[in-house]
């Protein structure tokens, strides 16, 4: 299975040349970069496709995840988001916007010693649920909040 995925990655071509150079420089470690499941997740359109690509089969709501978003975003092009997880052994945080053309906005991986906390800014096409998805010890947890968008941030 893993090998098949790797074949696919190798076939996809051009951009990977640079990745090979970067790997050689030690800038981006092979195996970590372009994890194929993540690429599929970023390309996925719907919530269900995205969750499937990420390998999420069961999902629990969890109040130990703090998601800070504005209630109303006047500018959908710049919506500040802060996620912090009090769940032990949080490995990854995914930021999802349910009604965006591609649901997955960003993912972050936290090595031992890094706090499971991140602040960033995302674009939102329209009023939507924003979901913080946490992976901890191979299990997935989520919390969600709605952000009302008065001017969309996608397209022109």
């Amino acid at each position, binding site marked *: 299975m893993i090998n098949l995925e790797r074949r696919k990655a190798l076939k996809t071509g*051009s*951009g990977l*040349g*640079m*990745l090979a150079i*970067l790997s050689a420089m030690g*800038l*981006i*470690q092979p195996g*970590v*970069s*372009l994890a194929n499941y*993540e690429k599929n997740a*970023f390309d996925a359109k719907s919530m269900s496709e995205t969750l499937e690509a990420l390998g999420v089969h069961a999902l629990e709501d969890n109040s130990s995840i703090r998601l800070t978003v504005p209630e109303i975003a006047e500018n959908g*092009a*710049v*919506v500040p988001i*802060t996620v912090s997880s009090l769940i032990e052994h949080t490995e990854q945080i995914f930021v999802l*916007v349910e009604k*965006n*053309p*591609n649901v*997955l*906005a*960003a*993912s*972050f*991986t*936290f*090595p031992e*010693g*890094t*706090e499971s*906390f*991140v*602040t*960033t*800014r*995302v*674009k*939102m096409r329209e009023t939507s649920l924003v979901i913080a998805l946490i992976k901890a010890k191979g299990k997935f947890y989520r919390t969600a909040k709605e952000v009302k968008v008065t001017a969309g*941030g*996608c*397209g*022109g």
Partner: protein
Amino acid sequence: MGNPMRIRAAVQDGITEVKILMQHEMETGLRKDAEGTLVPAWNITELKAVHNGKTVLEGHFGTAVSKNPYLVFRFKGGVSGDKITVSWIDNKGDTRSDEVAIS
């Protein structure tokens, strides 16, 4: 070679907070220019922060991360004067790497 990032890193009570402002268009691939042609997607796809040879954060971005991406994260350890290196790569294979000392 991409445009330089602005990075600030400060340590307080054993926790280092890193703030990064990247300069990148982050085109969604859905926007049309004045002539009505689609502007192709152009976005940072991967990001990595390294402290003393150890990776302290890895990130993957889709096109929905805002133009000129902003990021804040925290890690344990880090001493004033330590170097932190942040690198990104975009979907066209362009890269940028910048270094800052913890204050």
